[in-house]
């Protein structure tokens, strides 16, 4: 996935078919033999049109990804949210340094003294501390590690 694509942020123009696709596919693809044909039939599109539009929505960065959403901890992996206080003048350098770690699954700039917030997903829980140490070494900054202690709710659905 190219950076240019993920960084696009202006609202996209979506027609009714795009909206039906986005709303339907946030809920999940059925694991049936011809899954796209099944979903297309539900939302009154042909399979070809669904696939064409889905590809375009991904290329245009309207969808950041389409596929299985894996649960890091159930894969035996580690997961955490971490934050950095990045000096403005150094923001681009630190962004590049942090993003270079494959364990950084996503990274957002947020408007606060702690202005960089990223999620680390590692293959083992022990790796989290190693990656944090490596990020501190690469950036020269202190990482605030905020692993979840309790989960009350998770279900992202953005209707359009």
């Amino acid at each position, binding site marked *: 996935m190219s950076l240019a694509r993920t960084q696009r942020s202006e609202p996209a123009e979506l027609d009714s078919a795009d909206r039906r696709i986005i709303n339907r596919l946030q809920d999940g693809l059925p694991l049936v033999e011809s899954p796209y044909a099944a979903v297309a039939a539900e939302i009154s599109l042909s399979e070809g049109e669904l696939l064409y539009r889905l590809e375009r929505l991904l290329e245009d960065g309207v969808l950041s990804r389409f596929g299985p*959403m894996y649960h890091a901890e*159930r894969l035996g992996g580690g997961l955490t949210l971490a934050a950095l206080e990045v000096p403005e003048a150094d923001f681009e350098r630190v962004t590049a340094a942090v993003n270079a770690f494959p364990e950084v*699954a996503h990274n957002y700039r*947020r408007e606060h*003294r702690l202005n960089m917030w990223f999620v680390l997903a590692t293959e083992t829980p022990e790796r989290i501390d190693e990656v944090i140490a490596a990020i501190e070494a690469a950036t020269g900054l202190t990482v605030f590690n905020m692993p*979840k202690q309790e989960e009350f709710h998770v279900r992202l659905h953005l209707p359009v």
Partner: protein
Amino acid sequence: MSVSTCPSEPMAATVSDGLDDLDRALIVATQAGLPLVPDPWGAVGKPLGLDGNEVRARMQRMQDSGVIRRVAAVPNHYRLGYVANGMTVWNVDDAHIQRLGREVAAITGVSHCYRRPRHLPEWPYNLFVMLHGRSQAEVESQAEALRELLGDACRDHRILYSSRILKKTGLRLARRPGPPR
């Protein structure tokens, strides 16, 4: 935050033991995305020597066990017009956070709700609630509803808006399966 999302059952660290090398190969093959072809299962299985039905059965098993949450589209909030994405953080009395966390989670519009550690003195907030709106005013009115719900148990809160996606790739495993755990 697609990678952090999961059902709220208790964590089972040993579930991964149920995955074999082919499951892991399937994970590696699909973590960038599912092929956009009429038979995605067959397309994923072919280089691994699996037929589509076997791939589908394995994916179903992983979905049933919670390793896969679902096979779904992950939207770019901004591109959908959700330009105000606020990570609201709350300093909630530890004695009440379990009950209040569950009540907050039930509010419409809340996508993620977690308890996380404070880092005193810099960071006093222990309840993280993600809110998404088409304007900051929309997020602020959602936050106001949360503030009323939390009442006296909440000493302070902040809304941290995301102003740029710096990276969003989701979970990545190494190409080669690791040793059995």
